[in-house]
């Protein structure tokens, strides 16, 4: 019985559709008002892997936080399967730029944190689920390690397991790998594609790095700053698993980068 329930818990892949409709967001500071998002509309389908790319300050994080429910739009709305988002929810997990793991808990304790908020599971089942996800990100051997004993890449893998464990419909990632070295990052690209193939979640991934976006996303959305707007979208049809050093991938990145350069240059004129 429990086994069956566990199987259900782990092998049921909920995803959801996201709609962003005419979202505007201003930040008022002592130096004036910043228009972080200006009438942004976007649809993200079930199980899609979308990457947001754009220069610094173009509102990528702001939009991600609105989807996460950590910020509210000034006008317009964000909907998940047609229901307006009013606050954070267990159907959307966030992975931050810094790992944000809790240093007072060990690795498995961190993965359990989100699971404990989830009803209808016994503690034993939660533990099994947590172990499964640690295994999925290849961190099962470190279940009882302290956070400070892990390398940066290992921490981000634990953070990924922590976000995946409650089985959210949507995974939101804000530059999760930007603090890591190239080697570790490449390994994590493999891991995350693997996870996405297996779990088919809707993923929104924010990055500065065009190549990273092309390597991971099924679609790349370009943002431009002042005010923050969606500028262009590029579908990526390359076969998976993708290698970041692949030739076609580099070509596509090249054309996206020149598009990006084009309007940041005109922007600053």
């Amino acid at each position, binding site marked *: 019985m429990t086994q069956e329930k566990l199987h259900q818990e782990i092998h049921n892949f909920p995803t959801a559709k996201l709609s962003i409709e005419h979202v505007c967001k201003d930040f008022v500071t002592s130096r004036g008002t910043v228009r972080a998002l200006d009438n942004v509309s976007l649809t993200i389908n079930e199980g899609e892997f979308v990457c947001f790319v754009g220069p610094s300050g173009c509102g990528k994080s702001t939009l991600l936080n609105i989807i996460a429910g*950590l910020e509210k739009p000034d006008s317009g709305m964000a909907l998940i399967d047609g229901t307006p988002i009013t606050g954070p929810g267990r159907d959307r997990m966030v992975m931050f730029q810094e790992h944000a793991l*809790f240093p007072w808990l060990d690795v498995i304790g961190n993965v359990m*944190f989100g699971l404990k908020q989830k009803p209808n599971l016994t503690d034993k089942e939660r533990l099994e689920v947590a172990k499964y996800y640690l295994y999925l990100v290849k961190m099962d051997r470190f279940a009882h390690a302290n956070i400070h004993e892990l390398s940066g890449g290992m921490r981000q893998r634990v953070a990924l397991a922590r976000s995946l464990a409650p089985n959210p419909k949507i995974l939101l990632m804000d530059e999760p790998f930007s603090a890591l070295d190239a080697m570790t990052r490449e390994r994590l690209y493999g891991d995350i594609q693997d996870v996405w193939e297996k779990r088919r979640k809707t993923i929104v991934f924010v990055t500065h790095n065009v190549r990273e976006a092309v390597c991971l996303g099924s679609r790349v959305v370009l943002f431009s700053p002042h005010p923050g707007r969606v500028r262009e979208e590029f579908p990526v049809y390359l076969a998976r698993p993708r290698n970041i050093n692949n030739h076609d991938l580099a070509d596509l990145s090249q054309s996206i980068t020149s598009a990006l350069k084009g309007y940041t240059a005109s922007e600053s004129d």
Partner: protein
Amino acid sequence: MKRVLITLFFFVLLIIIWAGLTGDLAAIGLDISLWSPYVLPPPSTVGHYLWDNTVNGKIPLSMLITLRRLLIGYIIGLVLGVPLGMLAARFRCINDTLGMLALGLQALPSVCWVPLACIWFGQTEAALLFVVIMGTLWSVLLSTQNGMKNVPPIYARAARTMGSSPLHTLIFVTLPASAPFVVSGMKQGWAFAWRSLMAAEIYVSVVSGFGIGQYLHYGRELQRMYQVIGIMFIIIAVGLLADKILFSPIESWLHRRWGTDKE
């Protein structure tokens, strides 16, 4: 091991010097009694005093009385201080009122409360407890508040996205995240409580029980410096033991978990 030996050697040396200067080593030809035993008694007299009064149960009894006061006062101080510190960290109006009060009163050595406590409560247990609580409460409150304010906001954001309610976040995220600060505040609170209680016991004689501090006081009244010094040793020992038994294990656990080990 070597460090323990060095420490041990240092203290033995101190006692030998003390013994040499007070005539205890006359048997081996070292008799330079600089002071009369009424001013500085030799270690042997102090040792005798401690031994006799431990065996006849007077010191253990007064320790019991003193530690009971200390624990009750300290625990009340914690039970009030930690939640009030949490409130002060969370609500600006509490910070601006109670927080300022705490900041002011923390600057006041708690022995200054003794005269008021005697008028308000008379020569009672309550007066002693009051002084101990005043000594503990403010420093615990302030360090809890400081600890909570220093928690990186990303922890609470992460918790909220995992479906943690505000109360759940407070108890299971903000509080443990501020644990290093809160524990060092608790430790400081303990040190203040101990100092306050000694001050209070020296000044206030209470019929309901004769504490360690009161022995010190009467040692002076009766010109028994061996008693005064013996009791001082006990006070030092209690302070040290509390540190080693109560706080060191918690602190080293925190250091291990957080990776803030200095060595």
